């Protein structure tokens, strides 16, 4: 029998397999449940307007911030009912992808 290099072990429900592991598998990110309290920018852009006020009660689906990106004025909406705890950006700020813009409690 041939010998193979770079072998690892893959555990499946049918047993432990001696095999090569691909980068998609070894590099997979642990799953995280989305935290709706943190409102993130889903794309880099510029804060065009802030609709929500600190301490304001908001419902799921309410507009919080307008983010200007990709030639679009994107409405960032609340994904939960709650109170606006903190606003971390100001009008005119340039924001990167995944930045926390606002917190809800």
């Amino acid at each position: 029998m041939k010998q193979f290099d770079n072998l690892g072990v893959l555990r499946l429900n049918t047993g432990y397999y001696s095999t090569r592991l691909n980068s998609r598998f070894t590099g997979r990110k642990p799953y995280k449940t989305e935290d709706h309290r943190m409102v993130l920018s889903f794309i880099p852009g510029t804060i065009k307007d802030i609709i929500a006020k600190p301490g304001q009660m908001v419902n799921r689906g309410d507009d919080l911030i307008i983010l200007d990106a990709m030639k679009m004025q994107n409405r960032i909406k609340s994904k939960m009912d709650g109170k606006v705890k903190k606003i971390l950006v100001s009008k005119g700020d340039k924001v990167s992808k995944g930045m926390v813009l606002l917190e809800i409690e």
Partner: protein
Amino acid sequence: MALSKKIKELKEKREKLLLGGGEQAVEKQKAMGKRTARERILALLDKDSFNEYDMFVEHDARDFDMDKKTLPSDGVIIGSGTIYNAPVAIFAQDFTVAGGSLGLMHSRKITKIMDHALKMRMPLIGINDSGGARIQEGVNSLAGYGEIFFRNTISSGVIPQISVILGPCAGGAVYSPALTDFVFVVDNISKMFITGPEVIKTVLGEEISMEELGGARIHSEITGNAHFFAASEEECFEQIKKLITFIPWNNERKARPFDPGEPDPAYIIDKIVPDDPTLPYDVRDVIRAIIDKSDFFEIMENYARNIVIGFGRMNGKTTGFVANQPLEMAGVLDVDSSDKAARFIRYCNAFNIPIITLVDLPGYMPGIDQEHAGVIRHGAKVLYAYSEATVPKITVILRKAYGGGYIAMASRHLRADFVFAWPTAEIAVMGPEGAANIIFRKEILSSGDPDGTRKQKVEEYKEKFANPYVAASRGYVDAVIEPAETRKFLLHSINVSENKSIQMPYKKHGLPPF
């Protein structure tokens, strides 16, 4: 004017056009390790077989001072020739002329040769090396792309379409190769993307080089857009020539048979597959032990390696191989390997190529990432492709064939014409561990020694069910064969399937889970 003078005039005109974009531009092209468009065509086709058409075509753009510019042959060379005497239609974009940019007449030359290829039912090869749309020609340039995409689609499954990326191919232009059957890329030369690094940086703030974004390696290993990777243009042309020998000229023909030959005796089929189903081996060695001259032409070698696809010959006849690869990710079916296999099965079916499937897989890949990436939808493509295929389908179960994986891999139930199994085959509803744990749950839990009982029950289950004989007793397996008999059984099966004919119900087209 005397005839000799007219001929001289023609020669002069031709010579001028053959210079393409001129010496400087040609030098620049060479400095990038690239050949010129005509050099590429001549290197690819049989000697003296190329007939060029539309050499004298010129653009008729008027805006932005374009009327003062002449672009030799409008930046694309078209014609026809042969590869190992097979007729092929070909176009090659000439980067030395206005960066190979696509304007109206440029696109008309391409669509002319595409129409010709479809009408004559011969393969089409497109060599892409272009900066993209000729902006000065505005919406005419977009129209040109659209006309090409439409023809790619209409010709799909009628004539083989091959795309060769030998330079940039960006923006909308990428969709022509994406619609064709096989895409060839060359290291450091091919660049394919929808939006380039500059746009990505501007709108998303993400920085990446062209090579990392859409170079040859990325498309061969990560995206699955490319089917063949080569280190140089020469190697790439050899790959294309070899592919042409394996495929038919159109969907109404079969591939031409080539000299048959026995497999290389260095591949001893009994000594490749370990008995322990959790130990790896290279399934390509099994294929090589079966096919003529052990000459396996692998497709998408570096993408989703847990499944192997490619062509080999059985007694001279082109045969498509689909095989789980236990050496990579234990040979599981996942999102990428399902896509890879399904498309190849459909290719074989469209072009009358019998399919041999070698089965050894633990099942579908578990995981949140797989489930969320749509392994249900993608995995279903394999079932769909095998079920709809009407070409001869022959299956050999080497070791594991559990659960959904067993069904998907060209089982009898998806209308395999022949199913063979080696004595090492384990055909069962699920792996022995899982099955024993469910069936004997009560006994295991109520036992004074649960671990001992579990082990004993797993062994019992293995003994009784992890074999090919239960499936054979129901006729799901046609014959349990010795590994060394595999080639003999496969040759026979292919021979007797020569005139296979089945009728499918009328439909406009099916709805595979794209």
